[in-house]
Structure formats: structure tokens, C-alpha cells
């Protein structure tokens, strides 16, 4: 709890207090829990994916073009987020904020497409209540989407704090952590892309 600095200057700013190190480690462990959480959703989807109950199937509703665009948006945002952290480690507040904002715009674009996708599904008759397949699909995608939405809101809070306080041990730590979160969502998306969309279109 004590925020005393272990003044080892070769460490990036976000690692410079004991509390920050603990927060970052704690967040990694939280990500471990998130892996299990998403794995459970994937398992559920894996079990229920072929149970269409007479409703639409994967081939009926997936639109590969949109999925590819979404994927590129999210991949790029993960990249720009990496650049933002890179700028932060070079102590450049402006660069950091600029890249963060770009990241959020890309994330927003992703979210916008995902919402459209959901609307499209419902129009196709693939709602939450339609079948085991649609239930598990929408909840898996929805959980990921909700994480993205939460990430955007959270990042905005952090940008506000960065603007107010500049680069301190606390703000850099918080920024680093949201960076981890954002990359993690990209990792999850890779698996959604592969095991939901591509598999659905192949199978």
C-alpha cells in the first residue's frame, strides 16, 4: 500500500512504485480469470453451435466481409494502442493521448459495426431466443462487445486523468493497464474470428 518509489530509473515509470507493480500483476491475474471466462463461453458455443432448432445457421447469417473489416479495425486499434504505450515510455504525453484517441476511434468503429451486425442478425430471425446456437453466439459476441464498450468508457476516464495530471507513476500505471486490457480483447477476438466465423463458414 505504501507508494514509496524504488528509484530504479531504468524501469518504465509505470513500474516504479511497489503499489504499481502489484496493480499490474493483479491485472494480469485478472486477465487469467478473463481467459477462463471466455473459454467457458467458447466451450458453450462449441457444444451448442450445431443446435439450430430449425432456426438460421452460421452460413445463413455470417457476412464475411463485415467480419474482416471488424477484424482489421480491432487489430489496428491494438497496434495503435501499442504505439500509445510506446509513446508513454518515451515520456511523450501528447503522442500518448493522440494514439489513445485513435485507438478509441477504431474501437468505436468496431463497436458500431458489431451493433449493426446484431441488428442484421435479429432481422434475419436470429435473436437471443431463437435457438441454442443463436443464444450462445450472441452471448459470446455480446460479452466481447461489452468488454470493448467498457474499455472505451474506461479509457476516456484515463485520458481525462492524463490531461489533468500528466505522466505520473499512477497515471502511467493506469494507462499501461488499460493497454493490457485492450490487447487482451484483441486476443479474444482472434479466437472468435477463427473458431466462430471462419469455422462457421467452413463447416
Amino acid at each position, binding site marked *: 500500500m505504501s507508494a514509496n518509489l524504488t528509484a530504479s530509473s*531504468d*524501469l*518504465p515509470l509505470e*513500474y516504479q512504485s511497489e503499489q504499481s*507493480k502489484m496493480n*499490474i*500483476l493483479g491485472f*494480469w*491475474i485478472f*486477465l*487469467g480469470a478473463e*481467459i*477462463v471466462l*471466455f*473459454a*467457458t463461453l*467458447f*466451450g*458453450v458455443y*462449441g*457444444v451448442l453451435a450445431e443446435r439450430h432448432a430449425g432456426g438460421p445457421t452460421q452460413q445463413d447469417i455470417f457476412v*464475411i466481409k463485415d467480419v*474482416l473489416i471488424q*477484424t*482489421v479495425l480491432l*487489430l*489496428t486499434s*491494438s*497496434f495503435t*494502442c*501499442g*504505439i500509445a504505450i*510506446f509513446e508513454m*515510455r*518515451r515520456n511523450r504525453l501528447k503522442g500518448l493521448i493522440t494514439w489513445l484517441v485513435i485507438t478509441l476511434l477504431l474501437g468505436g468503429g468496431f463497436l458500431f459495426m458489431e451493433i449493426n451486425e446484431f441488428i442484421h442478425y435479429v432481422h434475419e430471425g436470429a435473436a437471443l431466443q431463437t435457438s441454442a446456437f443463436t443464444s450462445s453466439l450472441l452471448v459470446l459476441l455480446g460479452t466481447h462487445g461489452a468488454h470493448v464498450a467498457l474499455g472505451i468508457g474506461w479509457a476516456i476516464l484515463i485520458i481525462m486523468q492524463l490531461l489533468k495530471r500528466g505522466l505520473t507513476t499512477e497515471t502511467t500505471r493506469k494507462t499501461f493497464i488499460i*493497454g*493490457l486490457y485492450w*490487447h*487482451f480483447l*484483441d*486476443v479474444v477476438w*482472434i*479466437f472468435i*474470428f*477463427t*473458431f466462430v466465423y*471462419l*469455422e462457421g*463458414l*467452413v*463447416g
Partner: protein
Amino acid sequence: MSSNAEKGFPISHVVGFLISLILTFAAAWIALKTTLSIKVIMWIIGSLAVFQAGLQLVMFMHMTEGEDGKVNIINITYGAFMAAVIVLGSIWVLTSGHAAH
């Protein structure tokens, strides 16, 4: 992946980004444009996904850096193991025996 290694240009980020784009499109191409059997396709694109995830973890998330790098590696490995148990275990258990209709 120490921050000091790349002062001016974020070379590892750019490389990582390019690789992940390539992997993504490769996976899409294999899945949609080839005529391999589903099993083979799934093995290939599944491996690509795992590889790409590892790339993100190391190149973008700096998983191995800092004094807790080892803990992070153990943590994520264990998470991956749990994920495998949950996904493969559930599917195996629920599609075996009578359930295999």
C-alpha cells in the same frame, strides 16, 4: 522487450502488426478459398490463432517483462491450460456416449 531497446521507432510493434494482419488474412484465405477438409483447415487456422495470440502477448503486452515476468508466463500458461480443459473437456464429455446423436 525492454523499453530502452527501441528508442526512436516502434519497430517491434510495426512488425507484430504486419504479422498479425498477414496471419489473419492467411487464415481467412485458407478457410474460405481452399478445398482442404474441415479438420485440416481447423488445425491450421487454430494454430495460426494460437500463434497470433502469443505474438500479441509478447510483443504488445510485454508479458515477459518486469520482475513478475515469470509469474505472468505461468499465469497465462495456466489460463491457456484451463481454457483447453474447459473447451475440449466439455465438448468431449457432452458429445460422447448416448449424447452423440
